């Protein structure tokens, strides 16, 4: 008997009456919940809100840059707009994006646990996030900040008369939210795995989150103390970064980038975890070189701490340090490349299908590769001197963060949407959205590479006439990109009520999360599973189905 069942339960399935969404009712059952799945949903709603605020600010930036003159807004306003765009997008969207939503939802289920290790701390982290977000909004409404998201001294300590302290406090608080998320993940992955779930049977999604969590726990506090020192310098007038008192402004950048460079990996690693799952599922193959991909996540995390000064090559650090950091920067390319190559080999001879998550995953692979390779340009000290602080850098990190991370986020949201809600998203329109996003993205940011090569500096409201054509391209692309982001927002909400019912395992995927009902029960598993199969073992899945056909059908 070798009948292959296609989506066996989707036609007949119903959304189970008892699940984590219906278990308790009322607003308080959400606001005081300890359930990691509900907290994930709370996070999803809040980060989407901040994503659209950040996106609106990005729209304003692109609109201003349509013309060479600063005509839409004054330069001061422009400074505030791009600062708030950076702060909102980085600290309130990218850092918590995948970990706090999908990670929160899936990690306990993937390892066969009933919840994260510290449910209350998990809820606390959401409230801290909200407090940080509210303070950021408060700072924005009461005048904004104009230092750039990097808060570079002495600008932020002496010359800016905007809301630096409020925003700093917001980041400090949001930082603790991220610390608690990371701490929770590490402890959960170490201590809560189901019997038989060894480290090398864990999905790569978990490995990626483990690596990112290490960075959250060890990196974020350095940012916290740096913000405290900046605040003390502004209020009391201590002299740690103030050159007139003998302080060194570059020390600020050392401490700031000690966090903010690893933060880049905090943002991208969870995205890479998503891609591993998606590519494996839609190629119907094990991830090629599982161990290598798993360890490359950890390697990225560890190397991530060795390279921060490549943000400071032209800031007056020692030439010898530049050499060392430039060399070390190249090291990070190795584990990143390991991932890309292994994904490519996973695709090789796989039975590839092009569902929406896979389209986004392809987008990720292409755009992240470009973003990563241009990073090598910037990590090379010689070219960095020409390219740094130009639009080349803007394009580079948007390729990694928007082209990479946001694509991965959308890929993951579509992939696990059936598990989150119990309903499918509409396939055709979402495929269209994925393509629109990809096209819009390239139109927006590829011209910026050229602008950077030509020497257009970042962070100015006005620019010379000859850069206008490319900027118009970029703004036009941003419009398309905006449509690409609005579409999922609309049809995903629509699918909550009208989407096709998904059933337990619409993708025929192997992870533990697909073996339980969707949406899951509050306690995830009625009985704690004992894991015997390998991860990504599609033959095991086939055998299970045959078994079912023989014995049940």
């Amino acid at each position, binding site marked *: 008997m070798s009948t292959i069942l296609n989506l066996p339960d989707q036609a007949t399935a119903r959304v189970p009456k008892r699940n984590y969404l219906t278990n308790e009712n009322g607003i308080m059952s959400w606001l005081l919940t300890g359930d990691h799945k509900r907290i994930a949903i709370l996070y999803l709603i809040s980060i989407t809100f901040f994503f659209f605020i950040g996106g609106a600010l990005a729209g304003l930036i692109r609109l201003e840059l349509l013309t060479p003159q600063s005509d839409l807004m004054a330069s001061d306003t422009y400074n505030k707009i791009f600062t708030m765009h950076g702060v909102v997008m980085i600290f309130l969207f990218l850092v918590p994006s995948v970990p706090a939503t999908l990670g929160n939802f899936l990690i306990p289920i993937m390892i066969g646990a009933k*919840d994260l*290790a510290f449910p209350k701390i998990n809820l606390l982290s959401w409230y801290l996030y909200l407090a940080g977000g509210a303070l950021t909004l408060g700072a924005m409404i009461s005048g904004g900040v104009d230092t750039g998201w990097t808060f570079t001294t002495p600008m932020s300590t002496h010359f800016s008369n905007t809301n630096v302290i409020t925003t700093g406090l917001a980041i400090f608080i949001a930082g603790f939210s991220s610390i608690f998320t990371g701490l929770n993940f590490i402890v959960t992955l170490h201590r809560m795995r189901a019997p038989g779930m060894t480290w090398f049977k864990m999905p790569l999604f978990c490995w990626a989150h483990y690596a990112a969590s290490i960075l959250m726990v060890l990196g974020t506090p350095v940012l916290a103390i740096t913000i405290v020192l900046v605040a003390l310098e502004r209020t009391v*007038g201590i002299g740690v970064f103030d050159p007139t008192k003998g302080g060194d402004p570059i020390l600020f950048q050392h401490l700031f980038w000690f966090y903010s460079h690893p933060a880049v990996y905090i943002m991208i690693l969870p995205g890479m975890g998503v891609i591993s799952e998606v590519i494996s599922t839609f190629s119907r193959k094990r991830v090629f070189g599982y161990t290598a991909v798993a360890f490359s996540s950890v390697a990225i995390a560890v190397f991530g701490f060795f390279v921060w000064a490549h943000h400071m090559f032209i800031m007056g650090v020692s030439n010898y340090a530049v050499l060392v950091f430039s060399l070390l920067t190249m090291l990070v390319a190795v584990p990143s490349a390991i991932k890309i190559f292994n994904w490519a080999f996973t695709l090789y001879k796989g039975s590839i299908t092009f569902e929406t998550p896979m389209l986004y995953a392809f987008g990720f692979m292409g755009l992240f590769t470009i973003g990563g390779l241009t990073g090598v340009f910037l990590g090379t000290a010689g070219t960095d001197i020409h390219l740094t602080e130009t639009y080349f850098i803007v394009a580079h990190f948007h390729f990694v963060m928007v082209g990479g991370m946001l694509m991965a986020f959308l890929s993951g949201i579509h992939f696990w949407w059936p598990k989150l809600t119990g309903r499918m998203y509409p396939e055709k329109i979402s495929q269209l959205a994925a393509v629109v996003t990809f096209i819009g993205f390239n139109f927006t940011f590829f011209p910026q590479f050229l602008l950077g090569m030509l020497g257009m500096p970042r962070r100015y409201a006005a620019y010379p006439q000859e850069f206008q054509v490319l900027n118009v391209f970029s703004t036009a692309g941003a419009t398309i990109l905006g449509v690409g982001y609005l579409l999922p927002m609309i049809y995903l909400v629509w699918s909550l009520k009208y989407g096709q019912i998904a059933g337990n395992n619409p993708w025929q995927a192997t992870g533990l999360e697909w073996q339980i009902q969707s949406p899951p029960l509050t306690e995830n598993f009625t009985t704690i599973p004992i894991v015997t199969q390998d991860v990504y073992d599609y033959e095991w899945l086939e055998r299970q189905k045959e078994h079912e056909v023989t014995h049940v059908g």
Partner: protein
Amino acid sequence: MSDSHAVAVAEHGAHEHPAHLRHHFVSLEQQDETASFGMWLFLLTEIMFFGGLFTAYLIYRNWYYPAFVSASHTLSITLGAINTLVLITSSFTMAMGVWCAETKKQKGLIWSLIATIVLGFAFLGIKTVEYKEKFEKHHVPGSSFSIQSFVHPVAEDGKAADKALPADTAARTEVYFSLYFAMTGMHAVHMIVGIGLLLMMLVQAIRGAYSHGNIAFVENFGLYWHFVDLVWIFLFPLLYLISRH
């Protein structure tokens, strides 16, 4: 496909479930290990939090060594040493408190906690005396800072005056005092938080909350308190004992 095919069923053996075992843990050992591991990870963040300050200290101490020596000499070794003593003793009483909790000695726990609280307040009291002196001598960085006492040192009763510093060197003492206040201030904030938690714990201990074996909170707070002690173990020689000979 059904759940039971995909995942075998774990024996949900005949465990006695103690009242304080949370639903998502299998056993109390798992729950306790998890809590202390979480606490240690939190302490890692604390290491890095103070790490930034220690880095700044190390760099500026090498840049402005003479200024650091003179500024450090304005601190009172006696007060610093007493405070070290107080803090180490409080660490010891806290450790004893943990032992009392582990062996279910409620009285012992209560008295250990009281001793720790008293010593904590003593530390903060002495710190206040030291801070007050800094304000009086205009050694607090910021608008009231003055380098007068370094440029024109005055002999105090019994002690010979320190060597006068050139004005540019003396100006760098402000960096030292910035770090002094940032480091000891952050440390004091941790002490205050700790004392708050101690008071909370004392109330709980009197109510007998820790007499039934649910002592993870006491043990993990112990880790925190020892960590605060540990930071001071480094702060004391670094801030007070620069080139005293």
